[in-house]
């Protein structure tokens, strides 16, 4: 067990080290996220912005676009110099590669969220004080499911042309239930002041479980150098 965990840490550590040294992806997605928040804030105008509830939708738009870029970049790293073939030749399970990639993607998305969320909260006057942990839990549940599908399809799509539009095209419709569930839960939590029920969280955990298990099972079929 510890061996597998160490292998996962090695795979994701490698990705994160590359990112820490090049800072290619994070710089791009953070600026993109802030731009999306600003554009939507300007587009919605002062009336809608004042309600505060638009913030969750705006945040999801920023996370979705930023996330797709993260998934693409972490997989594109393997496309250079035949790195993927080397990774596949390593004596590790394909599931380990999936888990490692998933963790690096999640780390990038959390970094994105740490910058973009405060920006949106301030610009939209979204009052998080009612339940900051509820907000974090809902977003964490959403991120895990989104990154699970995104990591799988980034690997599937990365060897084809037209990557950019294609990955978004594949991942967005599949992530819609996550967006619906989390925005509805946010509306209840912050709009109507209901406490975060176990039903809502169970739905999110069920999503994550389904996405993770299916992606993990299918991942080894689609990995090709």
């Amino acid at each position: 067990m510890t061996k597998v965990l160490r292998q996962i840490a090695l795979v994701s550590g490698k990705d994160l080290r590359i990112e820490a040294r090049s800072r290619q992806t994070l710089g791009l997605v953070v600026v993109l996220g802030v731009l999306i928040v600003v554009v939507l804030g300007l587009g919605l105008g002062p009336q809608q912005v004042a309600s505060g509830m638009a913030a969750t939708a705006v945040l999801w738009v920023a996370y979705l676009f930023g996330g797709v870029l993260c998934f693409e970049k972490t997989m594109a790293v393997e496309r250079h110099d035949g790195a993927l073939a080397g990774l596949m030749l390593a004596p590790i399970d394909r599931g380990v590669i999936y888990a490692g990639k998933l963790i690096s993607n999640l780390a990038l998305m959390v970094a994105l969220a740490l910058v973009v969320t405060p920006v949106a909260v301030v610009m939209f006057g979204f009052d998080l004080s009612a339940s900051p942990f509820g907000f974090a839990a809902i977003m964490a549940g959403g991120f895990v499911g989104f990154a699970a599908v995104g990591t799988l399809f980034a690997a599937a799509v990365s060897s084809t042309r037209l990557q950019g539009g294609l990955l978004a095209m594949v991942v967005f419709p599949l992530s819609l239930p996550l967006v619906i569930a989390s925005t509805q839960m946010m509306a209840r939590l912050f709009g109507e002041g209901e406490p975060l029920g176990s039903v809502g969280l169970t739905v999110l955990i069920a999503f994550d479980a389904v996405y993770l298990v299916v992606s993990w099972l299918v991942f080894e079929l689609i990995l090709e150098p």
Partner: protein
Amino acid sequence: MNTLKKKIWTAYWLATAAMFAAAVAMVFAWTPTEATMGTVQKVFYLHMPVAINTFLACMVTFIASIGYLWQRRQVWDDLAASSAKVAVLLCSIVLLTGMIWGHSAWGQWWTWSPRLTFSLVLWLLYVAYLVIRPSIESRQRRALVSSVYGVVAFLDVPLVYLSVKLMPDIHPSSIALAPEMKLTLLSCFVPVTMLAAGLIAARFHLQRAETLSMQEADDPSLDVIPVRPAGGLT
């Protein structure tokens, strides 16, 4: 296609058309008009059977996708693509008939009610399936990516259902129908299912012919791709 096959095919479509005509006659001449909604309620006899068949077509795509991942035979991919096309067509009809119903019942063409959202997300899921297919050039890669998508998209359907249940609802959850209405619904269900199955079969036939002609153009051995051993390239 030999003559016998052609005859069976013609008979099938004639039977479907005849049953459609009979069902339409039943809907308008025999079934009582609903008290509150009036004539618009009759769109329901098309709406519900098509909705059920949409689901069945999605299931065919799901099963064919699993078949492809399991056996790597092109024939499964052709079946998955054909039924996905029919699923999108049927889902469009569900959305349109649903909007006609909604306009007369709630006075709006579109409301974000759970079931409308559910149908819309389902439609988007399978439209995306059709859109991503032509943008992948390699045939095996296309089959692989779309079969993975076909599996995940179908598993997504119950999740969409769960998530829309969190939204406020105005849709009828249980419907009380007069016995004549039930019989009419059943009589509409048969031709709609026959139409859906016939469309999938026709589309599959065409897709098969297309694939076979493409395969003859390049390598005939491409039909079966050996499954690589899992766990390494050794």
